[in-house]
């Protein structure tokens, strides 16, 4: 049993909107072990990105973050900005969805890499450049010297995403958060980037959080999955178990909406309705749920331990 690298408990993020506070993330809990890759899956608006930003301490101005998140036993939530800044890019790093937008178009790639090392490792320019070049090679950019001198617009989409991964891994972070790292890329490049993330785990980073809306991505590289809906956790399980013994109605609906090569005759079943959040207490998925009960609208479903390491939040399997 390896030790816990990240422990998140009762995490909440609320954002200011014109019509009051929106609970983007609510009572979320999970943990991450050394060497593990956890997938967080959900539709847009399910709070996955806000979860990642909360861990980074980068939620928008005016937002409120509550609960607890401990990295190697150290609390992240509510830490002073200066201390967080020392952690960011060093012990926690993030890869963003769109590499085109995440790289500064006005700065050479080299600068965007070395500045991280100069900040956190206090290296001189020459050493930093050498380390940066090595890192570019490690993420599969063979012509790394030329790459260092390039501007982002001179690289392809896949190369750019390799660069952002290299930036994130420069200081060998304990925790790597990848927010939809392949969504903006071509399908063939997607597979390469996912392979890269898997290969570098352990040697270049401690554990990973992969945020995606795509169950196929999760199936490909993750160890465990957390399914989110409307800012709340729905189900948490090992990947195999979730795919074969998915418990939550939302998880099963998601799986039915995927194309299956092994059962082509079953067809695709889309989830009815639009993603959204009902007001009031209760389960956020209830308006679209085919199996909803009376209490779904009144009471938040409690956490259920289906099996060791398999949690679900649904009234269906409750005491009644």
């Amino acid at each position, binding site marked *: 049993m390896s030790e816990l690298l990240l422990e998140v408990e009762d995490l909440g993020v609320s954002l200011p909107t014109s019509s009051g506070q929106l609970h983007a993330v609510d009572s979320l809990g999970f943990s991450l072990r050394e060497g593990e890759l956890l997938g967080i899956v959900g539709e847009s608006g399910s709070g996955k990105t806000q979860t990642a930003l909360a861990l980074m*301490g*980068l*939620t*928008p*101005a*005016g*937002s409120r973050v509550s609960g607890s998140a401990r990295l190697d036993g150290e609390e992240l939530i509510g830490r002073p900005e200066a201390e967080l800044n020392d952690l960011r890019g060093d012990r926690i790093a993030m890869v963003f969805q769109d590499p085109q937008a995440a790289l500064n178009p006005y700065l050479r790639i080299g600068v965007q890499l070395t500045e991280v090392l100069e900040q956190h490792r206090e290296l001189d320019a020459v050493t930093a450049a050498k380390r940066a070049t090595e890192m570019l090679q490690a993420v599969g950019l063979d012509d790394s010297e030329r790459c260092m001198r390039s501007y982002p617009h001179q690289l392809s989409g896949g190369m750019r995403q390799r660069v952002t991964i290299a930036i994130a891994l420069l200081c060998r972070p304990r925790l790597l958060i990848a927010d939809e790292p392949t969504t903006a890329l071509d399908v063939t490049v997607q597979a390469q980037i996912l392979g890269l993330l898997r290969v570098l785990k352990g040697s270049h980073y401690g554990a990973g959080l992969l945020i995606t809306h795509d169950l196929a991505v999760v199936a490909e590289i993750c160890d465990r999955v957390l399914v989110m809906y409307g800012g709340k956790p729905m189900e948490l399980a090992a990947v195999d178990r979730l795919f074969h013994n998915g418990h939550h109605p939302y998880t099963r609906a998601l799986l039915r909406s995927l194309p299956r090569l092994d059962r082509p005759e079953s067809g695709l079943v889309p989830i009815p309705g639009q993603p959204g959040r009902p007001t009031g207490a209760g389960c956020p998925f209830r308006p679209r749920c085919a199996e909803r009960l009376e209490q779904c609208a009144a009471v938040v479903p409690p956490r259920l331990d289906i099996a060791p390491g398999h949690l679900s939040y649904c009234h269906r399997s409750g005491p009644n």
Partner: protein
Amino acid sequence: MSAAGNSVAVGATPAGSGWRAFFNQSRGVRVCSCLLLAIAVLVVFGPLLSPYAIDQVDWQHIAEGPSWSSGHWFGTDNNGRDLYVRTLRGGQISLLVGICATAISLLIGVSYGAIAGYAGGRIDQVMMRMVDVLYAMPFMFFVILLMVLFGRNLLLMFIAIGAINWLDMARIVRGQTLSLKHREFVDAARALGVPAADIIRRHIVPNMMNVVVVYASLAVPQMILVESFLSFLGLGVQEPMTSWGQLVSLGAREMESAPWMLLFPASFLAVTLYCLNVLGDALRRYNDALAGSLRGAA
């Protein structure tokens, strides 16, 4: 709490729409609206309260400071003329120029921009290239030339000042027209055989009124500024008429012996321009926010 400071909160988002929401934006907006209204009322009706006429010389009180007893509330100038009346009458001219010149620049800019945008293709290219060429000109010099060479005619001044500002308006309107001209209701009108001129007038122009109004509101203070600039150079309105710019110019010459001659017209001019700019800015923010919330709802 974990404020990363990476959000943009420019001005307040209006919680609703209409005048109430506009005025609720900030205290600055309310204060400036009241001030502007007060100045407008004073400028229009204020001269009636004073027994003096604009060109009346009071030989007993030449270049005297403000005094309640003499009835010269803002003092008199070095010709013994009442500064209160002159400041307010000057304001009439300045405000009139602001409004009329803006109207002229609107007329030119909106028709030019709408025609270029609606026609598209080569016509559009040529018309906009002409705007580019004109843009690079020191326009002010032409206005100065015009005023110097053709004498100080009020109508000519409106046109000359209005002609400076239509370029921005033309660009904005062209952009709006381009985005509107392939909307369904325009296509429908075209399919029904409505002539182009009528489509522009009835369907395109009315649909960009809010943007036009915003830019027009920001143009008014600029026009007043140009007029006062001309008057300052002695090229604006002619005696006995006056304007704020001209009064400032006269005041600047006497500021050591009679500072009130500078301070009264200068403060009226500055406060008016300040308020107009604040309100124009607020109107733009309000309009942006409104457009944003409409887009969000769609």
